């Protein structure tokens, strides 16, 4: 099992909103190009530490950011 997970998003604006929302929740995240083996509708995705998965989901839900999927990397 990898240490990281990734949030796939429908648009660049949504990816950048997620970046901000998750940073404000004090989560360690980074924007990365979407890995080729995953498919997404937007070129960038948010990478996070997998142990934070529940916090990531909760923060995105609180800010009402629609995402496509949360997957392990």
């Amino acid at each position: 099992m990898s240490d990281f997970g990734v949030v796939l998003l429908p648009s660049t604006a949504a990816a950048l909103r997620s970046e901000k929302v998750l940073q404000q929740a004090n989560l360690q995240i980074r924007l990365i190009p979407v890995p080729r083996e995953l498919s997404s509708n937007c070129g960038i995705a948010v990478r996070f530490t997998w142990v934070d998965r529940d916090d990531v989901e909760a923060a995105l839900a609180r800010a009402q950011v629609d995402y496509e999927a949360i997957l392990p990397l």
Partner: protein
Amino acid sequence: MIYLDHAATSWPKLPEVLQAMTGFLERAGGNPGRSGHRLSIDAGRIVYETRELLAQLLGAPDPLRVVLTPNVTYALNIAMLGLLNPVTDRVVTTGIEHNSVMRPLRALEAQGLELVVVPCGPDGQLDMEAMQEALLPGARLVVASHASNVMGTLLPVGEIAELAHAVGALLLVDAAQTAGVIPIDAPALGIDLLAFTGHKGLLGPPGTGGLIIAPELDPSVIRPILSGGTGSRSEEERQPEMLPDRLEFGTGNGPGVAGLGAGVQHLLDYGVDAVRAHECALTQRMLDGLGKIPSVTMYGPLDVERRTATVSLRIEGHSVSEVGWRLDEDFGVLSRVGLHCAPAAHRTLGTFPEGTVRLAAGLSNTEADIDVAIGAIREIASA
């Protein structure tokens, strides 16, 4: 030189606006949202930040519902052409609209749209009883400017929203003259679609503007009037459903959007309430001064609470073009004369087809500027 043409575009632009624009080109040149590399992401962040700032300033709860456009004309067209079916729909608008509202609506009318124009009084105030009556048979959309660009009259958009919603109509507001100048809380006012331009009260450069879509409004009811690359859903040859991508076509005006963000940040720091207070004081001074010149006719409400700083006038015995020319040549006062792209508003005032002389103060003006303008008008009137 005294610049009194802020209703056309605000000037001079703030140093931080210019810096944001050059900074975007120097350091964040990547195409926002098209590539995953750092320059593209940096560019995307600046554009996204501007969405957040605009959302904050105008009361939009979701920055992803701030659609960026080249100006308010595009925003209005995207909303009206995308939403309306000319064969079945009915639209109600007002007698003081700009051509960026009237021309698209007249074009739709030629295709069968039922269009009702509710009259405004001689000072531009909307006849609310006539509005209510016009809405009785129902409507798909009401389109109203928040303030006239000719004589500054404010329309009661919150009350218009109530009337519109009571018959199931949506409200589209043209806030070209008020965004950044009058505090706007779009959800509190019940505005379903708020169109704004970036280069006037929002202090940004030309080539910027946008459309804010209320959270309750399903974006799929707005057909994209153009389509093309968005950087998202590239595998699909269909315009994406989600906002803002659904209504943003092609590479945007990155440096312009960066400049707009700096302008809006300035407004958030300074406070739109403070802008409004400054402009009300200047307007009161202008109205008091011009009111003492017997051959001057002023248009629009005399109560500064019911208007913006845009003042329209005529001097008996002088053509508006002569007045505009002399203000510029002899006094260095820059005004705008004529019809101001709003023949409907001038018909309402009874100033069609010659138009008026428009003096539009803004954030960069001082009381001394107003006094020079009043003195200049007095001198021209006395000749």
